[in-house]
C-alpha cells in the first residue's frame, strides 16, 4: 500500500478542516479526492506532500514514516492548480530544477528534460519563458517538472481547475493515458464528479473534513454509502422513504405493482431525448422523474395526468434515514 494516512486531524483556528481522517491509497493507481469546495481535499493533499502540518495523526508513504519529514525529503511530485511555474526560468530550466537540486550530471539532466518535454508535447518550447505559454501548456510543463524527479507519488491539486472546459477535457484524457504509460501512484483533487468518474481508478469522497466513502467509480455510483455520496455523484429524488435516481423511478398510468404511489404530473419538460417530470404524490411529496421521450409518449403523459410510481427493479436505493450530516 502506497500512502497510508491514519487518524489525521487539522484545525485552522477553531475551524476543523480534517476530522480524524483514515485513508489508504493504493500503489500504482490513479486515485481522485472528490468532494465539494472547502471540504478539506487540498488540506489533505498538502499534508501528504508535507506543505502543511497535521495537528495529529500520521502519514506513511511507500513504507516510509513521513509525518515529520519536510517536503523536500518526501520525494513527492506536486502539481498546483495555478501551475506555480518558476517565472524567471525557461521551460527546460523549470523541468530541470529538481534534477539540478539533486546534483545529477549535466548530460543526464539534459537528456531527461528532452525526454519529458517530448512526453508532454512541449519539445519545441523548451527555451521559452512560462509567460509565453498557454494555461494548458504551463500545466503540462508543471507536470513534467514534477515527474522529472521520479517521485514515489504524484499529487495534483485541481490541476485542470483553472483551464477552460475544452482544454480541461483534453488534459483529463491525456492524464489518463499518461498514467497508463508511467504508472506512478497518482492522487488528484477535484470537485467535479464527472472528472473523477471518468479518470480515476478509485475515488475518495471527502466532505466537511471527513471521508464519506472510498471505492471504484462503479461502487460509488451503484452502492453509495449514504445520501451525501449518492447526491454528490448524480441527481437524487425521494420516493416513499427511499432515495433513488430520477431515471430509476418507474412510471405507469395504472397501479400494476403493489405499493406503487399515486401522483399527478405537475410539470413536464422535454429536453432532447428525455422527458423530465415533477410528480406531486398523494402523500405530498415532490418526486423528480426522468424517462425517455418514447416511453413518455407511449404512456400519453401530459401535465395533470395521474401516474403511479415505483422504484425500478435493480435500482440503487437507499433508505432516507441515512441522510448524511
Amino acid at each position, binding site marked *: 500500500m502506497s500512502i497510508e494516512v491514519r487518524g489525521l486531524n487539522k484545525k485552522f483556528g477553531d475551524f476543523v478542516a480534517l476530522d480524524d481522517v483514515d485513508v489508504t491509497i493504493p500503489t500504482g493507481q490513479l486515485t481522485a479526492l472528490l468532494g465539494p469546495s472547502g471540504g478539506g481535499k487540498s488540506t489533505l493533499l498538502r499534508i501528504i506532500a508535507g506543505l502543511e502540518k497535521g495537528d495529529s495523526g500520521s502519514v506513511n508513504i511507500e513504507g516510509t514514516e513521513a509525518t515529520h519529514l519536510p517536503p523536500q525529503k518526501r520525494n513527492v511530485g506536486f502539481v498546483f492548480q495555478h501551475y*506555480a511555474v518558476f517565472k524567471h526560468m525557461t521551460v527546460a530550466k523549470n523541468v530541470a*530544477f529538481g534534477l539540478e537540486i539533486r546534483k545529477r550530471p549535466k548530460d543526464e539532466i539534459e537528456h531527461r528534460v528532452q525526454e519529458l518535454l517530448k512526453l508532454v508535447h512541449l519539445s519545441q518550447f523548451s527555451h521559452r519563458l512560462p509567460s509565453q505559454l498557454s494555461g494548458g501548456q504551463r500545466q503540462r510543463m508543471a507536470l513534467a*517538472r514534477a515527474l522529472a524527479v521520479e517521485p514515489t507519488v504524484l499529487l495534483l491539486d485541481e490541476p485542470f481547475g483553472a483551464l477552460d472546459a475544452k482544454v480541461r477535457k483534453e488534459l483529463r484524457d491525456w492524464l489518463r493515458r499518461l498514467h497508463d504509460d508511467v504508472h506512478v501512484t497518482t492522487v488528484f483533487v477535484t470537485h467535479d464528479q464527472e472528472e473523477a468518474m471518468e479518470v480515476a481508478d478509485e475515488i475518495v469522497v471527502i466532505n466537511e473534513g471527513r471521508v464519506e466513502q472510498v471505492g471504484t467509480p462503479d461502487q460509488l455510483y451503484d452502492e453509495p454509502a449514504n445520501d451525501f455520496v449518492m447526491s454528490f455523484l448524480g441527481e437524487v429524488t425521494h420516493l416513499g422513504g427511499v432515495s433513488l435516481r430520477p431515471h430509476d423511478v418507474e412510471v405507469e398510468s395504472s397501479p400494476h405493482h403493489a405499493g406503487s404511489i399515486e401522483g399527478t404530473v405537475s410539470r413536464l419538460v422535454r429536453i432532447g431525448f428525455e422527458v423530465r417530470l415533477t410528480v406531486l404524490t398523494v402523500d405530498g411529496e415532490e418526486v423528480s422523474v426522468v424517462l425517455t421521450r418514447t416511453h413518455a409518449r407511449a404512456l400519453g403523459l401530459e401535465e395533470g395526468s395521474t401516474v403511479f410510481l415505483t422504484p425500478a427493479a435493480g435500482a440503487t436505493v437507499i433508505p432516507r434515514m441515512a441522510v448524511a450530516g
Partner: protein
Amino acid sequence: MVSTSTPTKWALRAVAVGYVFFLVAWPVGLLIRRTFEGGLTNLTDALTDSNVVSALALTGKVAVAAVLINLVFGVTISMLLVRYDFPGKRVLSALVDVPLSVSPVVVGLALVLVYNGRDGWLGTGLEDNGISVIFATPGLVMATCFVALPLVIREVVPVLTEIGDEQEQAARSLGANAPQTFWRITLPSIKWAVVYGVVLSLARSVGEFGAVKVVSDNVAGKTQTATLSVEKSYQNFAQGEAYAIAFLLVMVCVASLIVVALLRPKVHD
C-alpha cells in the same frame, strides 16, 4: 473620461507647471548654472581639495555600509513579515515604519543618548573597550541606517506578497531546502524590488544631513561627510565649493532617479 473645459484645463496646467517650475526646476537649474559659472574651476578646485575629497570618500563609505546593512536586514524582515507568523508581528510591521516620520535631529539625539562615550547607556561600555560610536564612523553608519531603514522593506514586502509562495512550495516539493529555495526561487523573483530599494536607500544615505550632523563632530578630513561639508563651505563663504559638492550630490540623485525610472516597468511585469 469626462473632459474638463478648455479654460479650466489650461488653468490647471498653468498652476501645476508654474508651481513646480518656480519651486523646483528653476532653483535646481540655477544651482547647476552657478556651479559652472567660472567654467569647470569650481569642480576642479573642489576635487583637488583634500578635505572635500575625503568628505566624498567618507560619504561613499558610510552610504555603502548602511545600504548593505539595510539590504540584509530589510530582506530578512520582509521574508519574516510576509512568510511567517510570530507573536508581535503587527507591532513590528508598524515599528519598521517609524524611522520615516522621526525628525533626523531626533534620530541623532536618540543615538547620542545611548552610544555617547561619556554617559551613554551602551556608549561607556563600548568606549572602555576602545570602540567609539558617536563622533566616529560607526555612529555615522548607524544614523544613516536608521533613516533609510524602511526603504528596502517597503519595496520588497508588496512584491513578496504579490508573488505568493506557491513557487517556493513547488521548489520544496522538488527537493530544494530552505536556503536553496531562497537563492534560486525567491530572490530572483524579488530581484528588481531589491535593486529598487537599494537605489532608494543609496540616494537617501548619500543625502542624509540632520542625523549625521548630530552624531558627527564635523572634523574636516575625519568625520565630515559631503552634506556636512556643503553647509560648512557655504557658511565659510566658499560658495563655489558648496555649489560644486552640491552639484555632485545632485548628480548622484539624478542617476538614482534615472535608474529607478528605467527599472519601474520591470518591477511590474
